[in-house]
Every structure is written in C-alpha cells, then in structure tokens.
C-alpha cells in the first residue's frame, strides 16, 4: 500500500486497519465533505458501502477522540490512478440513524445505500429513492441489526397461508 499523504485527510482521525488500509473516522457532519474532498483528490470510484451494527461489541479499537456509537457506515473508495483504497467509517448514533447520502457525489452508491437502509436501517438523507431493495416492502425490521433474531419468524409474504 502506498503511504503518500493525502491533503484531504488532514484533521481527521485515521488508523491503519488489519489489512493495512488507511481508515478515516470523520464525524457525521463532516462525512460528506470528506468524501467530496477524496473524490476531488483522485478517488474515482466508491467501491463499497455497508452498514455495521456494533451492538454487543462496544470495545472495538477506535482512534482517540472517536466516540463509539451503535452503528457504523463503512465506505471503501478506490483510486484507479493511484491504485489505492481508503476506508471511511462513520459513527452513527442509535437515536438518530441518519447520515448524508453520497448519491450526488457517486451515483453508484444508490443501490448500496438502499441495501444499508434495508438491512441495517440507516437513513440516508438526500437519497432520491430510499426504499427497501432486498426485503419485501412490508417487511418489519432490519435483518442485519444484531437485535433482529434469526430464530423462527413467521413468513411475511403476502396472502400466502403458512403451513400450519
């Protein structure tokens, strides 16, 4: 991995993760600004975006000054020209699970943000079409939250009587 410093990262808490990728921890207010700056400094592609629910695992290692919250939105951006990845982890509070949408910066985030909304229940403000994408529309709850049980749940498909 290249170690050249990127000006856009100045003033943010960073950490090198287990795979050596530089990881940035912006707060929610500066998240969109950071992604915009990264895009301007040659990160052409938003390769991945997902939500993580850290309920039951509060002791993860974070840099100083970053307050752990229940949810995290994890974004991987990729620079084709510099052959380099940067990961962004935003802490999202349980009380208000909202972050800015990146749709206007990277339209490719559209489906990924819908997936994070659908499965983890994070709202992306400014997303043009924030609907469920994998689960049926009338599904209750967000399956990838840690408090969503994987035990027996009644099948919620419409108008289909259950086997018993």
């Amino acid at each position, binding site marked *: 991995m290249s170690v050249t410093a990127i000006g856009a990262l100045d003033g943010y808490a960073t950490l090198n993760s287990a795979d050596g990728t530089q990881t940035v921890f912006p707060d929610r207010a500066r998240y969109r600004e950071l992604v915009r700056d990264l895009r301007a400094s040659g990160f052409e592609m938003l390769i991945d975006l*997902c939500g993580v629910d850290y309920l039951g695992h509060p002791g993860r290692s974070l840099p100083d000054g970053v307050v752990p919250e229940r949810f995290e939105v994890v974004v991987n951006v990729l620079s084709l020209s510099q052959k380099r990845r940067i990961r962004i982890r935003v802490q999202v509070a349980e009380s208000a699970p909202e972050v800015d949408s990146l749709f206007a910066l990277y339209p*490719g985030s559209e489906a990924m943000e819908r*997936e994070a909304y659908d499965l983890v229940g994070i709202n992306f403000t400014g997303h043009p079409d924030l609907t469920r994408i*994998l689960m049926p529309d009338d599904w209750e709850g967000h399956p990838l939250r840690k408090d969503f049980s994987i035990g027996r749940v009644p099948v919620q498909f419409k108008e289909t009587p259950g086997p018993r």
Partner: protein
Amino acid sequence: MNDDTSVNNDTVLLDSDSEAVVDNIIKANQAAWSTRETSEGSQELRRRDVTQAEELGRESGAVLRLSDGVVLDPTQIDIDRPDDETMILNMGPQHPSTHGVLRLMLELEGETVLRTKPIIGYLHTGMEKQAEALTYVQGSTNVTRMDYMSPLFNELVFSLAAESLLGIEMPERATWIRMLMCELNRMASHLVWMATNGMDMGSSSMMIYAFREREMVLSFFEKTTGLRMNTNYIRPGGVAADLPDGWEDDIAVICDTILERTYEYDDLLTGQPIFRERQEGVGNLTAEEALALSITGPLLRSTGVPWDLRRAMPYLNYDQVDFDVIVGTYGDNFDRYAIRLNEIRESIRIVRQILEKMPKGDYRVQDPKVTPPPRSRIDESMESLIHHFKLFTEGFKVPEGETYVAVESPRGELGVYLVSDGSSKPFRMHVRGPSFVNLQALPLLLRGGMMSDAVAVISSVDPVMGEVDR
C-alpha cells in the same frame, strides 16, 4: 391494499394531498391492474399519472442512476409527457432471459425504452446474516452459494479476508492451486455466459457448445473437490485437498480443447453478420458513467478502462504470470462479448503457466490453530482427536479487527468486508457483489434502446442473481 402509498414511514414519497389523489386513482384502476397481485409497492416503477412532475424528475434521476456527477441532457427526461403515450411493462421475475429472478419494470414509448427499474430481492436468502451464525470453518460453505457461476471466487475472497485477520502466510502450493482453480472457474463462468448470451441472441448451438466445454472444467472440479459446483474447496488456511494424480494431463487436455473451440466460436458468432448487427452499438456505456456508477469487471473494461485487480492490485501470485488485460473501445455489447471470449483465452494462458510453475509442498498452512491434524494422527493420539473435534465444532478464533479484501471475479470486483470481535464467528460479513452493483448500469444501458435489445443488454451485464440478492 394501498401499499403503493402507505409504504415506509421513513420515506415520504407523497404528501397527504396527492396521497388522496393516488388513492382514488388506485381504486379506479384496481381491476385493470392485473399485476397488482404481485405488487411490491414502492419498489416499483410508478406510473406517470400517479407521479408528480417534481418526483418524476427526481425519480428519473434515481431510476436512471444519474446525478450531478454524470451529465444528463435535461431534454432527455420528458417530464411533461402525457401518460397515455407510454406504457409500463413488467418483465420477469419469471422470464427466461432475465438470468434467474431479475424483474425489470420498463417504461416504453412504442418499442423504445424510456425508464427502467430493476427490482431485485426475489432470491434473497440472508446469507450475510447467516454468516454471523456460522464459524469461519463453515463460512466458506455459505459464501460459495452466492455467485453460483463462480463459487471458487467467493470461497477465495472469504478465505483471504479471514486469513488477512489471522495473519497467516499461505504455502506456495496452496496459492498456486487457488490460482489454478480460480482461472478454470473463470473459464467455466465465461463459457456459461457465452452459452446464455448465444441463446439470448437466438443461437442455440452456442448454448450446446459452450456447455459442452464447461462440462470438461466441471468434471475436473468434481475430480479434485468432489463437487461440480459449490465446491467448498478453498477454505481459510489453504485448500481442502491436493490436486488429484495426473492433474497435469487433465489440465493440458482442457486447455488445448477449449482454446481450439474458442476459435470455433469465432466462426459461429464473432464474424457472423446478424450477431454483430445485434451486438454492435447496442447498450453503450462510457468510462465516465461506468466509474460514477461503481461498475467493475468486463463492463468497465469494455469502456476502455484497463482495470483488472489481477494486474492493478495483484493478489495471490498474479504478479508472477503473464497475461493481457482485455480492453474494449466502444463500451457496447460486442465489446463485452469480445472481452469475455478473450478472457477465456487469457485464462488458458495463465493456467498453462501455472502448470509449469506449480511447486511441490503443502496445500494447507501447517498451523495447528487453523489446520486439523492429519487423519493418521487421529488414530494414534487422543489429543489429536480432541484437537480435530474442537476445530470443527468451535472453530478457530480470529483476532479482533476489520478488513476488506477484493478479488477480480468474472463479473468484477468481488469484495468481502469482514469484522471480527475475536470469536470464532464473523461479527459482520458484508459481500460486495459485482453483479449487484453492475445492475445499476441497466437503466442507463437500456435507455433509448429498443425493447428487443433489452434481452441482449441484460445478458451482456451478466448478472448472477444469487450474488445480487445474496
């Protein structure tokens, strides 16, 4: 049922006034909308008469997956168009050419496609949730079922992610075996694509031919792994078994035969005027659009961007083999066809080099934390038996941390984001499926094209629904 309007409270689609209007329209049309039975509400493409002009503009942006980042000619979205000029057609999920259970809603004007919205989730089986309940030993059995056309890549990327957290070095032979199996799998996957694409284009002989060749690869998989698909062969810590005796001869035959047959495909399809007519200039994509939409794989390379993770960010031993990254020029269907056909040839080239370079040695890391003791030790030693038992019931503990690992699957960048809390099960496993992301290109590729080309374009995106829905 009025779930068209009373959808998620989180997404306010309509204000209360227009909600009443919509309710009336829905009531009036209930009998006429025969598709309402299968309706999934707000995930659908909405009719123009129930969509406010402002929303239609916004929706067009969303449905076409465009934003300020990509220049969109405003005149192309005709917001004021009266509804009776267009028609919304539902295609799928049970449609032979949607490659599984992809459902598209297309807005048509005559035969021209205006808006498209892919509706997915029909094959969602909650594999990411399931992974949290399975140990790392069991995990590769789970992920291999995602992209069922290239199961070994799923196993590979999951194993690499687990190994990156474990911090273990693979023996050389294990790495080369992984490369060999993955390149064979890439050939098999592209052959299935050639087959189904041929059938979508009306060439059923291509279907038979390509499946015939794929059978050779699958037979080799069966010989090596015991299974033709969903092999669970690549596991954290190495591969499940060594290559069978005489594998060199099998591989040589596979390479020679398939390489020769690819030239037959040239005769059958590449030079064929009807085929070219249907492929060239259809479903155009530019590099700028592809990058903005996070498109990877043959779709991205067809636009002229030479981005292949094997070359750009080498993993395994791809920096030690010679191969070309196939790049297109026009970003149309034909480029994507040519890229995949030539990638089969490049894979053969890589496999032949692996044949020469395959070292002797262990096919599994000799780390008792990850690898169970050999079978013979179990008969002799109680400790080995306990060790073996513990590994397969409790699994091994993976140090706390998080990692994102990506490989170049036949469809693009396949990534796994793995979070470990120090236990023997992943705390969170997120899979970045290339098909899932690449599907976002469909509305753009289909826009302005003919309905009859839609089948060709869907095929050229090569979505595998098992991976899209996971």
